[in-house]
């Protein structure tokens, strides 16, 4: 049964609603001239004060492979085919340079981030974050850890919901969730505002006896109580209250020009609400799936294309707005992926991951403490099974964001404990650069964490030729082949070329061919790696 306090009864008790400002909670009087609580006051009249920090939280659902996001291009373990990404490792020449960074380059589908780093200088990568004790490889447990900032799996409220409970109690506009209700937005004192599309955020009323119909709905909205029935009842009132305000944020000049990916649409909805001054400091949404057990390259590239488009459109929509300098984005994922690729062209669930901050107040840098990629030996003692070991409690991300939204005290209260401030909003000391020739990463001055040198940086090895391998499957005179098991120990397979033995040829990691006549044929696969070396294998089939 629902435990939340029905909003309207809550407001009646409260008679006021608090809205956060940069300086602290701002309590607005909701008492109208007739002395009755006017629940519309916060909806119709309240605007977030300019200069108030605003967070847009993006969860990369499914577990993003951070090694193929911020690519450790000079770490041999990354390329290792037994203990690293092997053929999944990105060719450094295809990745994007980040000014001042010698150890890392960015996935090629994220040019917006690279440009932002290289031009605006407000991108922070946080390495080594994760849940450090439970070694839980479940998506859904880990998502819950992140959403609640709690590891018991029993916490009903989300971290952003609790923040708004503390800072903006009872405000129906404070905690915005895009594209569905996310747990991180759920608080105790008011429902999260779920927005899918401001333009259609209008309660449809029938053309027949409209006023009476609405009056009847209003009557239904007064049931009250803490049951689902009471909550549903009060939400009818909320819906009417907020619809006009949310709908009025619509601006086709911002959202037009699509079609866009879902995440772009959600980010543009957030931009609309921010531009309109909706009294919310917190927006949350997700993008997925990143669960790249197979075909990781295609999946991750597709998601990053969407993310890149979304971030680009989002910041463009804010540009020129009076809120442009107030907004920062936090990107997380429930965990990273394992260090060693599987033979499906993917990676399995890992532990340590990476977070990203972008935007207002953020200083360029690689923060946190990178987990070592060195397995430590054949039994991989440096890893949790094959997962990289988290070096920083993931709640440091929450703590840092909440401290930016308000202050450290509030962050500590919401998270029920203190965690390191990652320092991404603090100007780095000159010594904290990322240009040294070790595998250490820049660590925020406030965390004073350093990373021991765990590997020796060496010149890139000479190109090792790939090994061709394929399997066949036969259906009558049709042969299907799969060459995804081919490997390149120091790069990746760039091309698969097939000859079928009857004069026909094909390409691609998988292919099939129908023979015109029965007989025995030799199928040949030639694989070419990303640096041009080739490997060949053949097999005979009888059809």
């Amino acid at each position: 049964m629902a435990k939340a306090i029905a909003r309207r009864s809550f407001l009646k008790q409260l008679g006021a609603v608090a809205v956060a400002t940069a300086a602290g909670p701002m309590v607005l009087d909701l008492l109208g001239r007739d002395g009755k609580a006017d629940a519309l006051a916060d909806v119709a009249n309240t605007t977030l004060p300019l200069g108030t920090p605003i967070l847009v939280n993006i969860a990369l659902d499914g577990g993003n492979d951070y090694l193929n996001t911020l690519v450790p291009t000079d770490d041999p373990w990354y390329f290792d085919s037994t203990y690293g990404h092997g053929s999944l490792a990105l060719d450094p020449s295809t990745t994007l340079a980040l000014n001042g960074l010698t150890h890392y380059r960015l996935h090629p589908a994220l040019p917006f981030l690279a440009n932002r780093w290289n031009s605006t200088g407000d991108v922070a990568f946080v390495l080594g974050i994760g849940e450090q004790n439970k070694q839980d490889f479940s998506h859904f447990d880990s998502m819950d850890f992140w959403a609640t900032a709690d590891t018991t799996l029993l916490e009903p409220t989300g971290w952003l919901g609790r923040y708004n409970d503390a800072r903006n109690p009872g405000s129906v506009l404070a905690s915005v969730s895009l594209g569905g209700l996310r747990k991180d937005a759920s608080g105790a004192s008011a429902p999260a505002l779920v927005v899918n599309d401001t333009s259609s955020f209008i309660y449809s009323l029938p053309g027949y006896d409209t006023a009476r119909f609405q009056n009847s709905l209003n009557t239904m909205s007064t049931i009250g109580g803490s049951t689902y029935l009471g909550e549903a009842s009060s939400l009818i009132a909320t819906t009417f209250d907020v619809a006009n305000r949310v709908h009025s944020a619509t601006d086709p000049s911002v959202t037009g020009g699509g079609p866009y990916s879902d995440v772009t649409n959600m980010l543009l909805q957030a931009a609309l609400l921010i531009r309109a001054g909706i009294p919310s400091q917190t927006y949350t949404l997700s993008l997925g799936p990143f669960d790249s057990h197979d075909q990781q390259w295609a999946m991750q590239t597709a998601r990053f294309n969407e993310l890149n488009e979304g971030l680009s459109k989002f910041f463009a929509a804010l540009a020129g707005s009076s809120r442009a300098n107030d907004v920062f984005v936090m990107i997380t994922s429930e965990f990273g992926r394992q260090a060693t690729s599987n033979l499906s062209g993917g990676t399995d669930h890992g532990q340590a991951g990476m977070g990203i901050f972008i935007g207002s107040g953020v200083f360029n840098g690689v923060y946190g403490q990178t987990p070592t990629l060195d397995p430590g030996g054949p039994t991989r003692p440096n890893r949790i099974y094959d997962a990289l070991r988290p070096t920083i409690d993931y709640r440091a991300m929450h703590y840092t964001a909440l401290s930016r939204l308000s202050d450290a005290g509030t962050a500590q209260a919401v998270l029920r404990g203190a965690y390191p401030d990652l320092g991404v909003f603090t100007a780095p000391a000159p010594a904290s650069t990322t240009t040294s020739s070790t595998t250490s990463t820049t660590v925020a001055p406030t965390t004073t964490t350093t990373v021991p040198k765990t590997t020796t940086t060496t010149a890139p090895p000479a190109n090792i030729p790939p090994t061709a391998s394929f399997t066949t499957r036969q259906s009558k005179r049709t042969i299907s082949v799969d060459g995804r098991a081919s490997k390149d120990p120091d790069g990746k397979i760039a091309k698969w070329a097939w000859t079928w033995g009857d004069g026909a040829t094909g390409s691609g990691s998988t292919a099939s061919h129908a023979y015109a006549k029965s007989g025995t044929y030799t199928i040949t696969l030639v694989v070419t790696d990303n640096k041009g070396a080739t490997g060949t294998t053949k097999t005979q089939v009888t059809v």
Partner: protein
Amino acid sequence: MASTQAQVAHVWRRLGFGPGPDDVVNGVAAGGASAVIDDLLARPARPASDWLWPGGPTGTAVQGDATRLLELMSTSPAQVQERVAWILQGVLVVSWGEQVNAPEMETHMNNVRSWPGRTYRAVLTDVVRSAAMQWYLSGAGSMPPHANQNLAREMMELFSLGVTHPRTGATNYTQTDVEQIARALTGFWGDWQTHVVSWQASTWDSGTKTFLGADRGAAGVDEVIAAITQQSSYRYFLPRRLYRELVGLEPDGPTLDALAPVWGADGDISSLVAAIARRPEFTSDAAIQSRVKSPVELVVSTCRVLGVQEFSHLNLWWTLNQLRQHPFWPPNVKGWPSGSQWLHASQFVNWSGPAQWITFSDPGDSTVPPANQLPTVRRLASEGSSATGGDLALQLAGLYDVSPQTLSAVRDFAGAGSWDYYRAATTLALVLQSPEFYVN
């Protein structure tokens, strides 16, 4: 204490997708909630030959098959079969797309819908071997020596055991178990052109494996499922899920202990559903309205209330897209959220339109083809009046013991002017947007 009518309506909502216009009255006449439970449990399942998926090219099939599914859920007399199949579809999750197109998805639907008379173990085995699941959880193509762990993990976490034991809290499996079971599940091979999945020894890891506490030899799928069903948690995991879905409450320990032997070693779904439905708490006041309708439940129950006969012109799949629950596009392998996750302002906004235009899709005149007519709206218009229309609308929608506020609101609207077809239809649309209709 809930009235007999409210209890009967509740039984219809939990063992099916809600009562049609006469179901409550008939149920009360037949003896009340217990009699309705017996009736619903005894109804024969519809055979696969009745399911008739329209299929076709992907773009249209995903709409046509979804519409057909909603039609089956809404119109099938075998409501328990439909309700439990929908629950199982949210457990054994597959999403349309990538390599899962109409043929694969239809086979998957057939697997979960075939549960009556079968064990969960048998259904699980079919699902795990199916092309739909092999593609969706990337089992197809997994091979040694680095098998991918996707299917192995979710098979235990989401399909059969859970991460921890529901009674003891102990961890059910380790990461090593996942890795070993992933080895056992290799050998499935998918043809990217035909989407056919087959098993071939050449890509199967034939080595010995040790998992779930024992040496399992050269285990494959069958040995994995056999090992899983031997785990204590297997007797608790699905019973707890089905109890939550059907009762709407969290089962306590003794309740789970009582249900575990009913479920048995292989997973007797039919006996478990019957045992849950016949527990006293199933019709208790605490259970009534203890759930929130998901969008699929909102739409299907609305169709049952209105007596929708022809579905294709209503574009219900689009409505469900707007409400963010297309039945073939779950958000992830865990399926759709439940509980208060569907209780938010956007949901009310997005439901306000469909609740009205589905109801108004029949304008009540003679030009409407008989199949497109909504018999409940027409009946309300003809049998109701300004004085009685509000109460009759609530009754036809299966809503009893409603709050004074809702009763007042509906009566007020019904009695506000002359009683005609439009007032009747709008009164019914109002009922479909009432808080009592949102909850379940």
